[in-house]
């Protein structure tokens, strides 16, 4: 009997052994697949029990299935039928993996059908499925390993419950930690199980070391990160750029909510710049205490609000020769890029007199990437990367509906001016008059999420724009207007650090009265 024939023999045996489980699981999935309500965006509260169905019953059934699969002829099952037969351990393990893979693919395939049935476009459904197969397979492998380490289904379920309670804080459910970290957690847990089995004399040290080495290679070899983070939009190691933030002259005095002006030296007109962080470090303090050398953040909390996101037609590919139509969007400009950083100027440490300060800032450069150009009409505008954009009518007004997997690696659509890392822009163009309209969000409504498995789900968000009347007018038959969807891709970054002498920096805490740690600072040239 060849190895392939032996594997097929054992796979058939396992299929017969698990036939009742397959039947039960298929029934659960089939019910889910034909229940559009399960997969549609459901208002929370109206069909609340269904949430339990999708978030609890479906994954639990699959995991218990995997648990039972692992317990048959497992390491703890010394009286298992196959253990006494001339079937090698690798053959038995490979047969289990075949079943797990089939289980994962079957589950995800049914969910894709369910999503499609529920109104999600097939490209998005497939994208969600592709991102869910590997994590779900790892979860099944995890459950199978627990099954192989326990004597009975009840003890296996108990251990599985405890294991998932432990996984909960590290983000398997709920928290949105990077997938690679989750995968590593699962794989490291598997390594712990191997150690336990070795300690209990169920496997040899040689087997444990071999399997653990494989798991660690899988966890830290980068494979997981590549597989489970396929939709990461921002490159992790962007190159440095030559542009620098240049702070202007410090005013004689600056109060709360006053502006600290800056320019970006060498800025390109076709790029967007962002200052994500800036701080002031007081040096020369008479005090030698550590607190006086702590950096003082500018802005409210740790953010620095930048008003001069000067989005111009020149920065957006495909808009050459276009001009912004009035009313101009806030921040839209054709001037060379410069900005005014406006912060609350709140110090987060006690400040004493100093003679000089160091100002540090980080700068990032973004380029606009057009995702799609579509005629202005109701229906799907864009699908891909785990996201879909559709123009729908809500209460008689056109709104943009976004469906997206929160775990697909990308962030929800963000029209926030402050953070281009997850920002999208939509421009409506009129080719006849060569005018462009940058859509401005007015209201984000009804964020809804349906989690079908711990690793697959989506959010439904709707955005109203300030130019709703314009949109409604352009959607009339005969209109030749189009919409271009852009996203911003980080292209590079730089850091700036500058030390300046000051005469009176800052006002000492005694003069702040009851403001306590909230110190007002004053800049001197």
């Amino acid at each position, binding site marked *: *009997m060849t190895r392939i*024939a*032996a594997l097929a*023999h054992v796979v058939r*045996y396992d299929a*017969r*052994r698990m*036939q009742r489980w397959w039947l039960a699981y298929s029934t659960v999935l089939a019910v889910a697949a034909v229940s559009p309500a399960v997969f549609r965006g459901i208002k929370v509260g109206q069909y609340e029990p269904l949430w339990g169905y999708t978030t609890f019953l479906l994954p639990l059934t699959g995991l218990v299935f995997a648990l039972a699969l692992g317990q048959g002829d497992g390491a703890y*099952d*010394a*009286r*298992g*039928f196959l*253990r*006494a*037969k*001339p*079937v*090698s351990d690798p053959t038995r393990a490979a047969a289990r993996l075949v079943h797990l893979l089939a289980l994962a693919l079957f589950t995800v395939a049914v969910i894709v059908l369910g999503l499609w049935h529920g109104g999600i476009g097939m490209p998005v459904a497939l994208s969600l499925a592709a991102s869910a197969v590997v994590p779900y397979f790892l979860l099944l492998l995890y459950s199978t390993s627990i099954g192989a380490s326990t004597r009975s289904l009840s003890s296996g379920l108990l251990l599985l419950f405890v294991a998932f309670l432990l996984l909960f804080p590290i983000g398997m459910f709920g928290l949105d930690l990077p997938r690679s970290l989750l995968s590593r957690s699962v794989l490291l847990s598997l390594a712990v199980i191997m150690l336990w089995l070795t*300690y*209990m*004399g*169920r*496997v*040899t040290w040689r*087997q444990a070391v071999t399997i653990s080495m494989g798991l660690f290679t899988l966890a830290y070899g980068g494979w997981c990160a590549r597989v489970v983070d396929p939709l990461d939009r921002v490159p992790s190691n962007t190159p440095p750029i030559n542009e620098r933030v240049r702070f202007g002259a410090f005013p004689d005095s600056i109060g709360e909510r006053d502006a600290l002006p800056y320019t970006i030296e060498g800025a390109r007109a076709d790029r967007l710049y962002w200052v994500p962080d800036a701080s002031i470090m007081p040096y020369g303090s008479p005090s030698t205490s550590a607190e006086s050398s702590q950096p003082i953040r500018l802005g409210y909390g740790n953010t620095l609000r930048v008003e001069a996101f000067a989005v111009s037609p020149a920065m957006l590919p495909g808009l050459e020769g276009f001009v912004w139509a009035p009313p101009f969007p806030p921040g839209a400009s054709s001037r060379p890029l410069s900005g005014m950083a406006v912060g609350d100027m709140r110090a987060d440490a006690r400040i004493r007199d100093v003679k000089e300060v160091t100002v540090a800032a980080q700068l990032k450069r973004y380029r606009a990437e057009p995702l799609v150009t579509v005629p202005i009409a109701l229906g799907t505008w864009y699908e891909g990367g785990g996201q879909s954009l559709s123009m729908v009518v809500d209460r008689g007004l056109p709104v943009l509906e976004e469906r997206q997997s929160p775990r697909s690696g990308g962030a929800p659509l963000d029209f926030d001016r402050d953070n281009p890392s997850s920002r999208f822009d939509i421009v409506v163009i009129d080719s006849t008059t060569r005018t462009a309209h940058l859509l401005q969000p007015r209201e984000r409504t009804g964020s809804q999420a349906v989690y079908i498995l711990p690793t697959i789900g989506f959010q439904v968000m709707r955005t109203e724009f300030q130019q709703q009347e314009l949109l409604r007018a352009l959607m009339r038959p005969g209109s030749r207007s189009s919409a271009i969807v852009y996203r911003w891709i980080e292209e590079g970054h730089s850091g700036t650090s500058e030390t300046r002498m000051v005469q009176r920096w800052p006002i000492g805490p005694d003069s702040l009265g009851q403001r306590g740690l909230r110190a007002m600072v004053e800049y001197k040239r």
Partner: protein
Amino acid sequence: MSTISLTADAPTAPAIVSARGVTHRYGRTPVLRGVDLEVPEGAVYALLGANGAGKSTMLRVLAGIEPLQGGSATVAGVSVQKLSIADRQRLGYVAEGQKLPDWMRLEQLEAFCAPLYPLWDAGLAAYLRGRFALDSKQKLGTMSRGQRMKAALLCALAPRPQLLLMDEPFTGLDVAVKEELIGGLLESAGAEGWSLVIATHDVDEIERFVDHVGFLRDGVIGTAGSLETLRDALVRVELTFSNAADVPRSWPGAWRRFRPVEQAGLRVSAIVDRDSLATDPAFAAQASNRDERPLSLREMYMLFGAAQRHAGGGIPA
């Protein structure tokens, strides 16, 4: 109380199983503490010991089901750590409580097992099915305990194994089923010259067909050898005295070596090694009646295999 050292009993045939210093533990619990085992080829070997002595673990180590943690063990000259699929195809393993695929009919079980063994003998399987009065259409899940054991034995014998390992095969079976099993077993093994290792504490059932025994106690085999050698070496002597004055008040060390001399009225009974009888003590000549007989396997088991009782034991008042 000492044990007799008969492990030097030289095997007359090459060993099918050879183990030296085998150790095994489950977590912190040691089960095997250095087992030496030698099973001659063609032998029917009984591995005897109390519950928890480590018999099942030893057989599972030999079958390659449990990993070998310490020592060395070979089956047919191959280390149990390196048993290939071909080696395991010549090895049969049957255990009490062993799981069977309950959803299968007997004929499906045979059909599943047959491809796994190149030497599977369908004729022998059919013969054993008839001899064991098994219905090939019956599902394993609906079979009685005895029928399940027969089915397992059928699947273990049909591949004509070179070595058959059996773990408590007779536990919980009625007398008739035991007779059928033993008959089928002896018939097959005897005809083919297979080797058998049976782990059990059911000594009465196996005494008539085993030829070698090993007593496993506290994780080691203290006494082992051919049954014939053991019987030659140990003798139960029973003396009957005419009057109480003749009954001695103390006994020589050779008479107390294995267990205390038992005295009931004028009758005295002791286990001694045969060599000691050559120098009979004087009191033996005064006995009105003297009876000598070889030890039964049960008596040997009580001597070398049964768990040692704690001193001062007994039912509390």
